[in-house]
């Protein structure tokens, strides 16, 4: 009886273990990287292309040289993957960049690893460097860009000019993002940049109704915005400053208007629970220093958020950046404390407004 019982258990155990072994053997190569011990590696989530190339030169190489920690990249940046990673505990990457509004959402969902004070000294950072559990890195602006060869006189200078189809006739395009369009509309309607929030959604849509028939296309992808203005499909567009600069460098007659440009600051953050959080914060602590930020921004015309970075940027390059003091003064930023909790409502109303 006892023997029989033991035999049964042994056979069961054997079966269970052999199945587990076979499964592990078969799935081994598919197991997430977090399941294997890796002490001196950090996985950085990146956009790919020229963004990753600039990161490679400005951050990854000097960071590895200084700390011995290897950097591996995973592209592209995916906000949804952050949630999936934290929910499943399978970490494909340990550090990434998102804007303040997304950072607020991630905070609300409990997806952020708290800043490691032993590595990142918050009190030593510049004012405004910290938002929820993220550390500011670089800024990108979306602003009025127009074809100089298709526009009479001095060209449009504000969103009120963009709305003025009599004085500035021509085809137009805007970014397909509700809160951006609403902010432009309110500015065009005379709301001062520092009084934008809380967003007057009703007034914004009323003003948007005026321009709707003149918007030939609501673009969704950066490359699309470039094609639209390069091929002359539209004469005026709201586009990213780095994309506009790239076109100007290719001798396309475009001008980017810094006045009332929408600035988005991006933040380094670490997904909650990643086993390589320490390495990730060490990476962040390195990347937010003035010199690496300057190196990165010089390559892509993004704006450094560490003010000291400008000490390492020649003035003619600094003038192409969203955080160059002259530009920062005339631009505007969104208020994530209002926008994050209202984002779903704004998106739904905007989609409905567009579809009808």
């Amino acid at each position, binding site marked *: 009886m006892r023997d029989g019982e033991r035999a049964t258990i042994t056979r069961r155990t054997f079966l269970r273990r052999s199945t587990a072994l076979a499964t592990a053997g078969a799935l081994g190569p598919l197991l997430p990287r977090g399941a294997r011990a890796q002490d001196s590696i950090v996985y950085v989530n990146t956009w790919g292309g020229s963004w990753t190339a600039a990161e490679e030169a400005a951050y990854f190489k000097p960071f590895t040289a200084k700390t011995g920690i290897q950097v591996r990249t995973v592209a592209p940046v*995916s*906000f*949804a993957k952050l*949630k999936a990673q934290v929910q499943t505990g399978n970490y494909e990457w340990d550090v990434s960049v998102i804007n303040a509004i997304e950072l607020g*959402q*991630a905070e609300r*969902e409990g997806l952020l690893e708290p800043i490691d004070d032993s590595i990142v000294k918050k009190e030593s950072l510049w004012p405004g460097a910290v938002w929820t559990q993220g550390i500011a890195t670089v800024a990108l602006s979306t602003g009025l860009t127009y074809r100089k060869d298709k526009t009479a006189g001095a060209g449009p200078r504000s969103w009120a000019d963009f709305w003025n189809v009599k004085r500035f006739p021509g085809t137009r395009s805007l970014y*397909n993002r509700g809160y951006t369009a609403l902010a432009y509309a309110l500015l065009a309607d005379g709301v001062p940049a520092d009084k934008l929030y809380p967003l007057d959604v009703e007034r914004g849509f009323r003003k948007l109704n005026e321009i709707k028939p003149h918007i*030939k*296309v*609501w673009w*969704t*992808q950066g490359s*699309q915005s470039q*094609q639209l203005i390069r*091929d*002359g*499909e539209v004469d005026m567009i709201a586009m990213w400053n780095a994309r506009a600069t790239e076109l100007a460098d290719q001798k396309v007659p475009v001008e980017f208007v810094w006045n009332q440009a929408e600035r988005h600051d991006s933040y380094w953050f670490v997904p909650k629970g990643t086993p390589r959080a320490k390495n990730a914060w060490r990476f962040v602590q390195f990347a937010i220093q003035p010199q690496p930020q300057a190196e990165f921004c010089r390559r892509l015309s993004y704006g450094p958020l560490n003010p000291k970075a400008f000490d390492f940027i020649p003035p003619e390059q600094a003038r192409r950046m969203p955080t160059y003091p002259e530009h920062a003064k005339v631009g505007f930023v969104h208020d994530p404390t209002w926008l994050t909790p209202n*984002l*779903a409502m704004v*998106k*739904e109303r905007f*989609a*409905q407004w*567009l*579809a*009808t």
Partner: protein
Amino acid sequence: MAGDLAVGARPAAAAAGARRRVDLTGWVLLAPACLFLVLVFVLPLAQILVLSVTEPATSLAHYRRVFGSPLYLRVLATTFETSLVVTVVCLLLAYPLAYVMARRGGAVAGTLLAVIGVSFWTSFLVRTYAWMVILGSNGPVAALALALGLGSPPQLLFTTFASTLGMTHILLPYMVVALYGVMKNIDVTQLRAAASLGAPPLAAFRHVFLPLSLPGVVNGCLLVFALCLGFYVTPVLLGSPRDMMISQLIAQQVEELLAWGFASALAVVLLVATVAVMVVYDRVAGLDRLWG
């Protein structure tokens, strides 16, 4: 399908015992495939269903929101309408093409298949951007219209026309291959037999070739329609905002708002609507034709 069930119910009880053993062997052979389907298809689908009523809290609030807002039902209707139009246009274009390929065979079929293959293997994003250039106000279509003295053509890009054209182009290869696969196996001697019995070519086509090619039609339409339901990048890039497809809203909920519960509810509504369409389609076209 209804016919099959009736046939299955008919045999006498005596035969049922013998048949059951055969059925069992079938199930054993099917088990690995079933297990795979359960793991990668049924379980995730069940998870989506559960998410739609449990995240962030257990309620039917997501469904109330879908049916309470004019946006989602409208976009859902647009999605089905667009898919239907694209499927019909694909069928009308692909049928003669596949017919020529199947009847002529040899170099003609090979060349046409290669052309379709090259189009098929080109990234759909590249093909979409190509249409943006072709239909653009400074593109070749506009230039040709000007050269012919027709004046500048009406706005082509960012219209429903452009969106439908782009999706048709991308999905056409599926339809051609589905039709060609069936048509090339149609025995030509049957057509000759019809002719020898006095049928003029058109009648032979109508009474012999067309019915024999129907499995390909049913299959191709199903494939194109289902694929089209999930499209959104092409309509966004080529169409007007009114051409928005439901997957765009689902992707937005997943990727930008992290609202997986609501996204799941939208996905479930899309799935149920699709199944409903398939049931109607089955009644009209008969999905059992798929098996020839």
